């Protein structure tokens, strides 16, 4: 698979060289993980990939590295995971932090924490398939281009969708706008109305502080073809400044929200329903922020 899995191999090497405690961590994770991934890989035929290009073998390697980030680096604390039902479901969360680590944490939580492990299928923007390596890495891990056709097909197959309706406006926010939810897209609600799939609102804390971003060089981004070129605080530290700050992540999965109606309703009507979800997420975010004692523990 040419060099698409280089980063993974590097992560695996780091874990190998990281001493006995890390190796033990990996072995422990794998014992748990293999049982959990079996639920996901059993659905895949003998071809080894699903129609979207998700490869359980690849996912397993990613999940080990992701578990390290989840358990040790970001020490993620997750509540309400059992609110996620079986069958088709749309998971909706707030988005921040320049890199979609929030998506990775939610996906890892759904695999590692729940009584019924699930693979969340993230929906990404259409510039992602144009990026070499990333596009392939994403596809092997079950990430899909966010078109209505793809979303409908995945829900029809009983999968869990993960969407961030704030999109780029959310993830590229600067630090002064932290925890101000941006405008939500309407697509996820039309999907919910069309399929009857429940919506699980999720609040993420920590993503806002991983890369405290002071400024966004949008004009440079236009030249190099990236949606954003953020300048973040820890950049003054050479090399290590590229890493996210090891903030503590908090995830809260809310209760399922059911919506009924016409999926072809005009935007203003759908926006009212979307507002319900936005408020639900905002309430959970504010609640979690009130309980948080420190950014790091």
């Amino acid at each position, binding site marked *: 698979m040419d060099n698409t899995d280089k980063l993974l191999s590097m992560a695996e090497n780091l874990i190998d060289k990281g001493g006995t405690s890390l190796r033990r961590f990996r072995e422990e994770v794998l014992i748990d993980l293999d049982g959990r991934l079996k639920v996901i890989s059993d659905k895949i035929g003998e071809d080894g990939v699903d129609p979207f290009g998700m490869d359980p073998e690849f996912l397993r390697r990613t999940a080990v590295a992701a578990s390290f980030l989840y358990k040790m680096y970001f020490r993620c604390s997750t509540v309400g995971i059992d609110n996620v039902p079986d069958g088709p479901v749309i998971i909706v969360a707030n988005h921040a932090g320049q890199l979609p680590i929030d998506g990775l944490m939610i996906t890892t939580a759904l695999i590692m924490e729940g009584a019924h492990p699930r693979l969340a299928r993230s929906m990404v923007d259409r510039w992602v398939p144009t990026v070499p390596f990333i596009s392939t890495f994403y596809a092997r891990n079950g990430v899909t281009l966010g078109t209505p*056709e793809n979303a409908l097909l995945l829900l029809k197959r009983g999968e869990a969708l993960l969407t961030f309706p704030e999109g780029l406006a959310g993830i590229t926010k600067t630090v002064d706008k932290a925890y101000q939810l941006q405008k939500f897209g309407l697509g996820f609600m039309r999907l919910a109305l069309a399929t009857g799939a429940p919506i699980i609102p999720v609040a993420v804390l920590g993503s806002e502080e991983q890369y405290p971003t002071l400024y966004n060089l949008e004009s440079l981004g236009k030249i190099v073809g990236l949606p954003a070129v953020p300048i973040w605080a820890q950049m003054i530290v050479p090399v290590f400044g590229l890493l996210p700050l090891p903030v503590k992540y908090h995830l809260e999965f809310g209760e399922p929200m059911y919506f009924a109606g016409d999926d072809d309703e005009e935007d203003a009507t759908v926006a009212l329903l979307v507002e319900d979800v936005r408020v639900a997420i905002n309430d959970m975010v504010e609640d979690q922020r009130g309980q948080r004692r420190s950014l790091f523990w």
Partner: protein
Amino acid sequence: MTASHAIVNSARAFPGTIAISGAAGRFGNLLIRRLHRTDDIVSIDPRDFNRRPADVTHFKTELRRRECRNVFRTGNIRAVIQLGPYHSQERRQESSRFAAAIENFSRLLDYCDKYAVEKLVLLSSANVYGARPSNPQFLTEEAPLLASDLSALRDVDMMAQSFFWKRPDIETVILRPTHVTGGVGGVMARYLRMSPVMRLMGFDPMIQLIHEEDLVQAIRLALGPGHRGIFNLAGPSPLPLSRIIERLGRKSLPVPHFMANRLLGPLRRLGRTNLDPAYVDYLRYVCMVEDSRARTEFGYSPSYGTEETIAAVDIWE
């Protein structure tokens, strides 16, 4: 070849005489061999067709020539199968090749209109949708045709679509199969025969292949009474390009995508690849189709599995 697999049909596919246009090509040859025992076939092609079965009359002519009109005027032709836009292997300029393809097909539509043809089957391709980053994983027949580099294929497909309303009484069928494997000279099959196989570094799209015998079977089914419209045809479940190359036991030659178009010329001259520049994007983005309409409407179902369909790349006479 896994001939045991080929579906043996004893019933006629179509009650009248069938003209196959483009029959002297590799796929046309196969299609004729599968149809001539049960059906009355004439073949039309500007190329020589010496390997045809004895009971098939061959008209060596382009569709736009006057003698071709005579074939339709007197030949009692009730069905036409048009195999793709190009039937000439002359090394003409691209612009005149394009003009010839369009002119030929528009003349064919004219014959269908005038000489009591009841069924027109156009073998188009799923490639007409174009390989684009915004493509959904599976395209339906309603998706726009965005393959800007395959203009003749796209225009011929569109001309057939406008024929739907011009002659609603003629059963027009447009088939859009994914990459065909087998002894036929499909672009992807020819490309996969090279070793090493050129690829784009960091890109590994999901690819659908269809076995040539499954395509023959789909055409046979589409000739059945009452079927009309546009039908995607996919083979067995898709695989990433890299897995297909692995299963063929070949090595990849990864090149950076931003240099692919510049490298293609030298690589072709060196004989390292035979990929048409118009198909580079198909190594980068998905262009896969959803074929449930063909499955429900005329009962199409691929009988060749993943392994056999991939292995058929190496069938080469």
